């Protein structure tokens, strides 16, 4: 709880710093605040893992929450490192942007630690409303406007479904509490049909927030239109958080065998669709950012595997996959920001010859692409591997084969940018990579490799 309070207070502090024109202090204060929050998060680390719920059962800050909160805070930290001089180019309201990002982070930590469906709803809404704003912060930019409207309308629409789902779950079980719902499932002889409907509608709502097909339509447009920094935040931290929420709900409340028979086929369909649409559509894209957007849909498909093969290992599988994906994406977006800022366009041709002029940038981006594609000795491989073995251990062989096929398609489009950087020559100037960017790039790349070579230390965290 102190983490949530710290971050919300930090947000208000940054807001007021902006009021008093302390523009220089904004970023350092935010970063230091995040570090404090990170420290407090680890304070909740409990080896015995028998944490008690807080706020009258509203939240349960167990190791699962610690891990996902820490991941969210660290990735936000890295993304904010990239924000130096970024918001200033958009408008003078820099403090507000930091504040809203921090509010979104608060929402994320709530959904990583909820133990009551009302908290899930509140967390998701805090996060979403903040993101609606952040998507549209480029007020004069047509694309940003359009993205904000699309995101907002569709997001509000899907919130209705999530809410309806939660209501039906409540109506059937008589409580919002996750444990109570589990008790209801365990004790009742025949589960009410509205409970099933509630499960379906909750899946729909959460899948929308995560961007799984066929509820993915907002993803490419919004990711493309939103400012790149915000896209980085959305496609990494937010996605991870939604999956934490997903996993928590399904693992604690809906994991009984009869219920699994009901919702696993549904998720299998969603996962296959996401894989197919995400991967196939990404192949044809000519722009790096939009390619990443489509590929993020496919990663949702892989992440859904952990739910399909729900077991005690699912949480560490999701965590590893999400961590790998997040870190690699941060590198990709950092590189994208450098190219976009200095070339003005992110089509693949603009990466030509980067390997010669910016070796560090090219190398880190290559490793990130390899990780996203799931090549061994990078974090992405471990993530995919755990997903696939999980799916196989529950005998989803066809699905796994399908996913591996898709992973091959993935290699194709991820390597496009690598090929452009190393195998295509172009007259170009060296891009200036600011120090902050270099730090983020190097740290993330190291993390990718370390997780890839020795994932134990992070997989055992939960």
């Amino acid at each position, binding site marked *: 709880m102190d983490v949530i309070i710290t971050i919300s207070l930090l947000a208000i502090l940054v807001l007021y710093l902006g009021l008093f024109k302390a523009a220089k202090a904004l970023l350092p204060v935010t970063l230091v605040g995040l570090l404090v929050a990170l420290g407090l998060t680890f304070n909740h680390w409990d080896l015995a893992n028998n944490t008690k719920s807080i706020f009258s059962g509203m939240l349960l800050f167990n190791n699962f929450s610690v891990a996902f909160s820490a991941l969210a805070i660290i990735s936000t930290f890295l993304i904010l490192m990239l924000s130096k001089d970024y918001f200033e180019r958009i408008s003078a309201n820099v403090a507000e942007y930091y504040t809203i990002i921090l509010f979104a982070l608060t929402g994320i930590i709530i959904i990583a630690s909820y133990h009551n469906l*009302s908290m899930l*709803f*509140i967390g998701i*809404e805090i996060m979403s*409303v903040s993101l*609606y*704003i952040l998507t*549209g912060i480029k*007020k*004069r930019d*047509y*694309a940003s*406007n*359009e*993205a*904000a*409207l*699309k995101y*907002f*309308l569709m997001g*509000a*629409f899907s*919130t*209705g479904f999530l*809410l*309806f789902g939660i*209501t039906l779950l*409540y*109506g059937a079980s*008589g*409580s*919002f509490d996750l444990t109570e719902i589990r008790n209801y499932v365990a004790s009742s002889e025949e589960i009410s049909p*509205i409970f099933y409907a509630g499960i379906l509608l909750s899946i729909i709502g959460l899948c929308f927030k995560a961007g799984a097909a066929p509820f993915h339509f907002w993803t*490419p*447009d919004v990711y*493309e*239109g939103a400012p790149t920094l915000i896209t980085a935040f959305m496609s990494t931290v937010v996605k991870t958080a939604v999956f934490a929420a997903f996993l928590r709900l399904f693992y604690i409340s809906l994991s009984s065998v009869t219920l699994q028979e009901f919702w696993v086929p549904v998720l299998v369909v969603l996962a296959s669709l996401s894989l197919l649409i995400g991967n196939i559509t990404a192949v044809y894209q000519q722009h790096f950012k939009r390619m990443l957007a489509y590929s993020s849909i496919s990663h949702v498909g892989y992440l859904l595997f952990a739910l399909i093969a729900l077991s005690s290992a699912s949480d560490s599988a999701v965590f590893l996959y999400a961590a790998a994906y997040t870190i690699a994406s941060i590198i990709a977006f950092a590189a994208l920001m450098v190219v976009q800022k200095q070339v003005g366009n992110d089509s693949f041709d603009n990466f030509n010859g980067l390997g010669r002029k910016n070796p560090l940038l090219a190398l880190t981006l290559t490793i990130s692409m390899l990780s996203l594609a799931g090549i061994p000795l990078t974090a992405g491989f471990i993530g995919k591997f755990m997903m696939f073995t999980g799916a196989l251990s529950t005998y989803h062989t066809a699905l796994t084969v399908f996913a591996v096929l898709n992973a091959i398609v993935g290699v194709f489009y991820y390597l496009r940018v690598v090929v452009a950087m190393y195998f295509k020559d172009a007259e170009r100037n060296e891009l200036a990579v600011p120090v902050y960017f270099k730090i983020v790039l190097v740290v993330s790349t190291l993390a990718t490799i370390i997780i890839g070579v020795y994932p134990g230390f992070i997989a055992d965290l939960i």
Partner: protein
Amino acid sequence: MESITNSIQGVPLNHYILFCAILFSIGVMGVLIRRNAIVIFMSVELMLNAVNLLLTAFSVHHGDASGQVFVFFVMALAAAEVAVGLAIIVMIYRNTSSTDINVLNRLKW
């Protein structure tokens, strides 16, 4: 007064569910059919209100107050959504002088 409360509890829960589902669907249809961003947004609010009504009904049915408290949260967050949503729509209107959602399709493929 007492007899009114008693008699309203005589309405079976299914009727509430049905009614709210219909109301919710009307909202969904509104979102589907309308092209004006503001009207779509109003339809979304209708969906949320359908849910609120259902929550209250469940709350009374279970004799558990948390459902009604949840309604408060929904209302507060819906208000926040309204604020942000209208701001976005105003922003769009200033740039395109239109609130027609079909005008906005530059981001695609």
